[in-house]
């Protein structure tokens, strides 16, 4: 168990990166607090796995340092870092039994046989594979194999950190819940530092204390699920988290008023003079249809998802989504949209601007 510090870390897969665009992982400074569970969230190819492989030592970063509890391990090989990592696709040792698979990392570290046996039994219970312990791993189903991979990741108690690289991709949905719950309870009982990479927001929000959102090789926001939902620091976070994502509209900002195409929209906070590409962002949850006031829109479609309705509307080519109560009646004359003044965020060049309470 350790605090992991990233110091000016960056990585490029090219030998001589010229511009910032050549970096798969842009310069990053961050502390992963000891014993905390993090989710690393982002779309495919945003550098999540790169970051994970750098922490575990499978990749050597182009620049910067990695420290475990203040000790520089940038040049230490994976074996010395004592890290557990579970990969997206199951890796099992085909010729071994399930039991031997689970015992493998312990035996490689020369653990005592009685301890290994007890620990393997415990882990097998956790992943629900006690009955198949003496079967050969070859020929098991993909999700059984992935459970073994997870088990191998969890079997060592003294690891500095547990890293998961989209480990539940190949697992059945109902099993996903169960395993995720197991991982959480494991975290509670042992207090390992855990980093969990995923592109599934539900997975990230339910698993982690803190969610780290990455976009285009950069960490755009680190926060609790609540912070990510209410105050997305970057338009990508707004778009990526939530279903549907945040509505973004180009606007002129003057004090506590946003002006879109001649319509004034009141906001709860005030802003000084801003420059660059200005937008307001409002979650569909805080957007309402109205017959009398607001932005004139064209309603394209209404989707009933059971718990609520999603109204898909269009304002001059920009999509606006509105979440309406399941029971709400939507009249033919309700062709205008209003926003909850307290829930409007202002973005300049995609980054959120902190307003002052008016």
């Amino acid at each position, binding site marked *: 168990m350790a605090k992991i510090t990233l110091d000016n870390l960056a990585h490029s897969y090219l030998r001589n990166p010229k511009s910032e665009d050549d970096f798969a992982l842009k310069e990053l400074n961050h502390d992963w607090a000891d014993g905390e569970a993090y989710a690393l969230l982002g779309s495919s190819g945003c550098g999540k796995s790169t970051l994970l492989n750098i922490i575990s030592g499978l990749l050597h970063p182009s620049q910067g340092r990695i420290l475990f509890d203040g000790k520089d391990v940038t040049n230490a090989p994976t074996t010395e870092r004592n890290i557990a990592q579970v990969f997206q696709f199951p890796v099992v040792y085909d010729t*071994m039994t399930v039991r031997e698979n689970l015992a493998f990392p312990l035996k*490689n570290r020369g653990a005592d046989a009685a301890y290994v046996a007890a620990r393997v039994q415990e882990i097998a219970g956790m992943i629900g594979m006690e009955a198949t312990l003496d079967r050969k791993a070859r020929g098991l189903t993909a999700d059984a194999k992935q459970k073994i991979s997870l088990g191998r990741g969890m079997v060592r108690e003294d690891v500095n950190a547990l890293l998961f690289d989209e480990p539940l991709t190949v697992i059945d949905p109902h099993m996903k819940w169960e395993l995720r719950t197991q991982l959480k309870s494991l975290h509670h009982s042992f207090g390992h530092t855990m980093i969990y990479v995923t592109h599934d927001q539900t997975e990230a929000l339910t698993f982690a204390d803190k969610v780290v959102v990455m976009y285009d090789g950069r960490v755009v926001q680190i926060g609790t699920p609540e912070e990510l939902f209410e105050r997305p620091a970057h338009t990508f976070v707004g778009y990526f988290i939530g279903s549907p994502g945040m509505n973004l509209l180009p606007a002129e900002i003057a004090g506590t008023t946003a002006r879109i195409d001649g319509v004034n929209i009141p906001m709860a906070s005030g802003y000084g003079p801003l420059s660059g590409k200005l937008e307001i962002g409002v979650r569909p949850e805080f957007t309402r249809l109205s017959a009398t006031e607001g932005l004139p829109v064209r309603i394209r479609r209404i989707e009933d998802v059971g718990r609520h309705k999603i109204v898909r509307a269009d304002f001059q080519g920009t999509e606006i989504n509105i979440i309406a109560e399941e029971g709400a009646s939507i009249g033919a004359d309700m062709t205008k949209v209003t926003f909850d003044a307290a829930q409007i965020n202002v973005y300049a060049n995609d980054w959120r601007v902190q307003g002052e309470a008016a």
Partner: protein
Amino acid sequence: MEKTVNQKAWFLVLPVLFLVAFSAVLPLMTVVNYAFQDTFGNNQFFWAGLSWFSDLLHSDRMWSALGRQMVFSIIILAIEVPLGIFVALNMPKKGFWASFCLVTMSLPLLIPWNVVGTIWQIFGRVDIGLLGYTLDKLGIPYNYTQEFYAAWATVIVMDVWHWTSLVALLAYAGLQSIPDAYYQAAKIDQASRWKVFRFIELPKIMGVMMIAILLRFMDSFMIYTEPFVVTGGGPGNSTTFLSIDLVKMALGQFDLGPAAAFSLMYFLVIMLISWVFYTIMTNLEKREGA
């Protein structure tokens, strides 16, 4: 549901039947014919029964040739399989050098067999061959035309030079199919290099290695051209392997009856061993499927 019965489809098999009959069955039947008869010329044949076979089974000459053949095949398998795997493990995985290695290693496989023999025949000569001359100057007694060990060493080294590439290429292909994640997981699990080989690489190349062993066994068991060119089976009979002996018997002494019996038994032995291999291989696959 009634199936349409159309026996005419059998006619489509006829061309293949004719081809196989002319290229394989008829020649083989000729050999069978010779194996049970004797002749003193004039195309007159006499029934000989099983006497050629029983003669053969009591012939020291055949048994010693078979012994030499076995020793030869076992030695080259024992060298080529581990060496081939070792080479494959140390080849670059991608980039220019991977292609370079592949092409270089394929070269011996592309050389006609009698040319391979000629290359080593000249290479090993004490008067003009680079290898023979060098060894001679170093004071190592080496003369493959006169010494037993020199002749065997030459024939074995030649075969290793010629065929290790095949094993290496097959092993390399097997290794290339292992996803990176396996090696990464092994690092995470702190597995030693030996364990990576034992538990990841070896199981993955097992199937393809069985094929390599089968191919190399059959080929070496039937080896003729290269030792014939280099040593001609000598000195004495020391490198007279089964097929060299067979040709001597059939074309040198013109003993067609014993030679025919010899080839039939040779054929059966190879069939038997291939069948054993095949059974082991399919069992391995079944275990994989289970």
